[in-house]
């Protein structure tokens, strides 16, 4: 078990280093620099552009720039944005809580919608509930989130004036307004994730329901709901947990389009703006943060597998 964990941690660290190198080289491979982005609307003198390039260490050789950055990361200083001048840690500190809250709400909606409908579709296979759940899942999967978002805004904000169309209010400032601003984006994203969860829950449960131990449970005279919820569901959730972990990672790395449509200044918007402005320090920091988060979530999911499935637990123990 300890060896397994150490091995996983080692792989995770290596992944993080490789990811940081790929991002570092990748952003510099794209034409233009922070100085170029600044010349879009202002005629900077060559001297000023050279000063900007020097100020952000961009005149140094690439390996030196990389090592400088790694040194900064290890000391917790991620540099300043050439666009806003603000420390990158402040920018991420402002954006991340918004994306985190959106992710949590999205997953909550997805779990509440996806798991029950998945169970219902499995135990009512071939009946109206199954067809309805599948149709809803198909809708959730096939409707582009930006279109769905705009339709909801037109309906709930423009027509009924029920929810605010865009913007963000911090939970600490006004909890009710915060939820009002978050509800629509979380619902838009949540329906897409719920569709995936529904289908995974349905197929996982159908497969488990054919297992011998489920037949045994039925033979013992247990009610169908007890068989499903107590015996079958837990094992079928291993694949669902994988999907939850993956979706959580994707959502945390920023859902740029949804954030843009709803005017949420989260990680997605920060990333897009930073890429357009060639804000190297911010792009690198965001990429490193999201890579680390995805790795941590994957590690956590490994633990969840062990809790959910005795087979995984046993395989992890020393022989």
């Amino acid at each position, binding site marked *: 078990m300890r060896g397994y964990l150490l091995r996983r941690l080692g792989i995770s660290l290596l992944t993080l280093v490789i990811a940081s190198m790929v991002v570092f080289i990748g952003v510099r491979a*794209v*034409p*233009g*620099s922070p100085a*170029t*982005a*600044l*010349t*879009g*609307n*202002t*005629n*900077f*003198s*060559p*001297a*000023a*552009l050279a*000063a*900007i390039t020097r*100020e952000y260490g961009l005149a140094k050789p690439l390996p030196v720039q990389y090592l400088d950055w790694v040194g900064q990361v290890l000391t917790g200083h991620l540099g300043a944005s050439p*666009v*806003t*001048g*603000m420390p990158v840690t402040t*920018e991420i500190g*402002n*954006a991340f809580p918004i994306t985190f809250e959106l992710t949590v709400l999205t997953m909550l909606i997805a779990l509440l919608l996806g798991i029950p409908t998945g169970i219902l579709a499995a135990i009512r296979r071939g009946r109206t509930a199954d067809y309805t759940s599948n149709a809803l899942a198909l809708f959730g999967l096939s409707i582009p989130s930006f279109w769905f978002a*705009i339709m909801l*805004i*037109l309906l709930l*904000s*423009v027509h009924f*004036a029920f929810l*605010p*169309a*865009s*913007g*963000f209010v911090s939970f600490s400032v006004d909890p009710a307004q915060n939820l009002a601003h978050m509800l629509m984006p979380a619902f838009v994203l949540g329906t897409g994730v719920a569709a995936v969860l529904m289908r995974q829950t349905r197929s996982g449960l159908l497969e488990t329901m054919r297992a011998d131990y489920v037949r045994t449970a039925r033979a013992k005279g247990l009610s169908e709901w007890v068989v499903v919820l107590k015996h079958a569901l837990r094992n079928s959730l291993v694949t669902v947990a994988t999907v939850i972990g993956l979706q959580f990672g994707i959502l945390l790395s920023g859902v740029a389009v949804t954030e*843009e*449509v709803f*005017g949420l*200044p989260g990680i997605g*918007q*920060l990333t897009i*703006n930073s890429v*357009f*402005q*060639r804000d190297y320090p911010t792009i690198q920091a965001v990429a490193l943060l999201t890579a680390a988060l995805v790795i941590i979530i994957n590690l956590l999911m490994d633990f969840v597998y062990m809790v959910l499935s005795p087979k995984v637990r046993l395989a992890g123990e020393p022989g």
Partner: protein
Amino acid sequence: MTVGIPNAPTALDPSTEGSLVGRIVFANMCLSLYGINSQMAVVPSLASALPTVSDGGLLYTIHLRKGVKFNDGTPLTAQAVQTSLERDKTLPTSARAANLKLVSSVSVVNSTTVQLHLSAPDAPLTSILAARSGIVMSPTALAREGANFFEDPVCVGPFAFQARPSLDEVILTRSHYYFGGTPHIQTLIFQAITDPATCYSDLLSGAISVAGPGCLAPNDYSLLTKNSSYTTSQLTSNGYEGITINVSNGNGWQKPAAAANNPLATHPLLREALALSLNRQTINSVAYQNSNVVGCGPISPASVFYTKLSCPATNITEAKKLVQESGVPTPINLTLVVPTGTVNVQQGEIEATQAQAAGFNITVQPTEFTSALANAQAGNYQLFDIGWSGRVDPDQNTSPFYTQGSAFDYTGQGPNSIMNPLAQAKSTTNIATRKALYYSAEKAMLQYNGIIYLFHLTNQIAYPKSVVGVSFTPDGLLHLGSAGLTAS
């Protein structure tokens, strides 16, 4: 009151800020020595009168308004003007240094009078001081913040900076020190909305009170003009849209001019043929719902320096003849870089289709803006659809676009027929003389075709009828010091 703007401003430091939207934010919290009125004329703002120019255009004397205070209560003095201008000139990363290049020194005459000493006459200087170069920063805040002035910028204006909680949001609060009276609006928020469809739905739902310049798509603006619940306003800008051709920027803007690897660079007849194949009216009508003003020179009809040019009409027969005369076999394959975005791509596709009739086979290449800019500066392009937001003085809309060594010069060094009148106009203060010189330069540009000018962009804004007192000037700026919301 929330105002939708199309992008996020860069760091809010008047010395370094370089975005178009930054000007809109500054117009409400950082006034300049001079401003622009609705007739596009330079008028006093923090200065009490237009500058007195003496010593053959080498000395500018500026008198300041009396009793003006910065938003931190510090009095506005000549010393403060001197400090700001010297910072603009000497800060290594200054975006203003190029504009103030000819100002050799700034001296204080008394507490309300400052003098600018020039190394050579610079006719655009007064209009330059009506933009970000003329913003006066609080010396108290400068001493406190230093290079971090952007974190808490303090100037003179109807609103004071309050916070920038994210890149996309700037929050201002009304100033009680403002000499023009306390604004009605308590909190003014500038919200960056990069997607025009979102801007439109935000306006309809009331999430934003004003859709600022560039926020709405032309077709959405067109819909709002027919909606009696909204006030719409459009003004022709000083800017333009055109196709820039790589003629002599073969090695990049920071290297000496060299012919580009491009048939249009070596055959002026082909440039003329391309210009003749285009129908400006159709492009404006299809891609922009006729919202722009067609034209074939860089100087806008909104400018006092405008003289109507005789634009050659679309002439496919003549264009074909010129292509034949050039001796270049057809089809002539070219790549046109257009910034990504629906309207930009539409424009490029229309241009390519029109040019096809004359023998050009143009491939439209949508490219992310900064990448396109980098390639254009490096000379790695053939044709580039790019616009310019425009400045009040025509010098800033012409010279940097034909001067090798300028970051805006994508076409390469212009010929003497263009550069000589531009240089003369820069050193002459007489408006009639300058106007004639710019007309001469524009006619030369029309012959040279380094940039094929298509039309002058229009700035459009919209807001519900419940919003009143919005002032919108032809330089594309919103002034909200007198704005308010009616009870309805």
